[in-house]
């Protein structure tokens, strides 16, 4: 028997109906009513013909979205390592370069970056052909991957930098005292601690990328949003957007659970 079980529970504190509590319940009721309204709308406007025509397309769009985000986040993670390294470097030039990269890509909209890369590079076709890069920039898909990877690399570099800096200096010093090289110290001592801190921000970045990826529809990639726009432009039926919203919600929600699960796993040593 543990000590906890023996200790007596204090009586529950009184919970009066304060103004804040009433307001909370009213707001909750409004949200529930809105949710119920949407559900009723979906049931009432259920159109089997529309569904059978567009459901396969929505699924293929969803798959495009997942691929796009997965690949660009992975490439961005690789790119973010040298950028974070540069940001943390004592070398003035290197750290300035890292800062400038992050500054530009965080300070401008992803939409503008995607447009610039797709249509901007498109107008330099002869030069790109000369260096053999046109076959890459010709495809909307690879332009989107390129833009997204560069963008998420900037955010991930900042996440990584913040996480590394959150590890106390003593850890570095301890590793040095044990005779570990700086890179060894980073890999074996600092990163395992930093990544615990970085997990949540990484999860957020992934979620932001999933939602941000909806803009590729404007450069002719048929992702989930692209398929939605196509369905809407044919049917003029508002529920097409609602279906897309539900699919995005499901995607984000399953991701959230995955991140929760990983966090529970990697912080077991911290649970008291």
């Amino acid at each position, binding site marked *: 028997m543990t000590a906890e079980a023996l200790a007596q529970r204090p009586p529950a504190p009184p919970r009066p109906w304060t103004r804040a509590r009433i307001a909370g319940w009213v707001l909750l009721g409004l949200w529930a009513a809105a949710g119920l309204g949407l559900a009723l709308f979906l049931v009432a406007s259920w159109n089997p013909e529309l569904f059978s025509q567009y459901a396969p397309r929505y699924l293929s769009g969803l798959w495009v979205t997942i691929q796009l985000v997965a690949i660009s986040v992975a490439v961005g993670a690789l790119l973010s390592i040298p950028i974070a390294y540069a940001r943390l470097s004592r070398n003035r030039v290197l750290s300035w370069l890292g800062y400038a990269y992050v500054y530009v890509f965080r300070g401008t909209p992803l939409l503008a970056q995607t447009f610039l890369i797709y249509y901007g590079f*498109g107008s330099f*076709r002869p030069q790109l052909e000369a260096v053999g890069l046109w076959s890459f920039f010709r495809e909307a898909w690879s332009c989107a991957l390129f833009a997204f990877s560069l963008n998420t690399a900037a955010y991930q570099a900042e996440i990584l930098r913040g996480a590394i800096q959150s590890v106390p200096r003593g850890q570095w010093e301890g590793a040095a005292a044990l005779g570990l090289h700086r890179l060894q110290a980073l890999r074996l001592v600092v990163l395992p601690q930093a990544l615990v801190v970085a997990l949540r921000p990484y999860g957020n970045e992934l979620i932001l990328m999933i939602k941000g990826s909806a803009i590729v529809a*404007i450069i*002719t990639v048929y992702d989930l949003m692209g398929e939605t*726009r196509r369905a809407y432009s*044919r049917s003029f039926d*508002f529920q097409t957007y609602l279906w897309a919203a539900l699919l995005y919600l499901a995607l984000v929600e399953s991701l959230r659970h995955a991140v929760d699960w990983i966090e529970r796993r990697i912080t077991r040593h911290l649970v008291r």
Partner: protein
Amino acid sequence: MRKLLLALLASASLTGLAQAQDTTLKIGTEGAYPPFNNLTASGQLEGFDVEIARALCDEMKTKCEFVTQDWDGMIPALQAGKFDAIVASMSITPERQQQVDFSDPYYVNSLTFVAPKDAAFDAKAQDGKSIGVQQGTIAASFAESNYKGADVKAYPTQLEAWADLENGRIDSVLADFGVQYGWISSPDGACCEFKGDPVSRDDKIGIAIRKGDTALAGRLNEAIKAIRANGKYAEINKKYFPFDIFGQ
């Protein structure tokens, strides 16, 4: 605080009244479809649609105000009352007629391909080729149902489809004859030319209005007849096209 709130409410209801009494006819157009409706460098609307709409308003003796709206959201915006009529080269199709009413046609169009001058092109051999269209147009649905082997790429506006044709990302652009004509006769479209005969003809363009707005439909139809009869239509037509765009 309460007084301020009351004052705000009062002013809000007053502006509401003012809007109700206002007889200005609001006209929605896209502003990215030269030479039918586009924005000049200084942000003014110009083009065939815009001038026809102005002529119709003069004829109906109403004040008109233009609202620019993305093509995707054109019909929902009309239904939501953001404007009262769409003069934006909108084809009369059965799908759209389920959502909105149309005036009589004010011109007739056909779908035609353009492609680079030096490219060999056969409208019947489109498998494996890429065709650029504008999302939500009849060209988009026509291309998707008639060229199943082709890669049909849908752009938010017509201008982006042409930009990619110039870049060489796509092999051809399928769109209305009139809008393609405007582009290939401008310096921007010097790369390209019409290829083959129109693939679909007799595409009637009308003014979309909210369902059941029959009074406005009647006035618009009268006005269209009037500007056809008094030469105003021919005058605008001549400014943009060397052929009669009205059709039969």
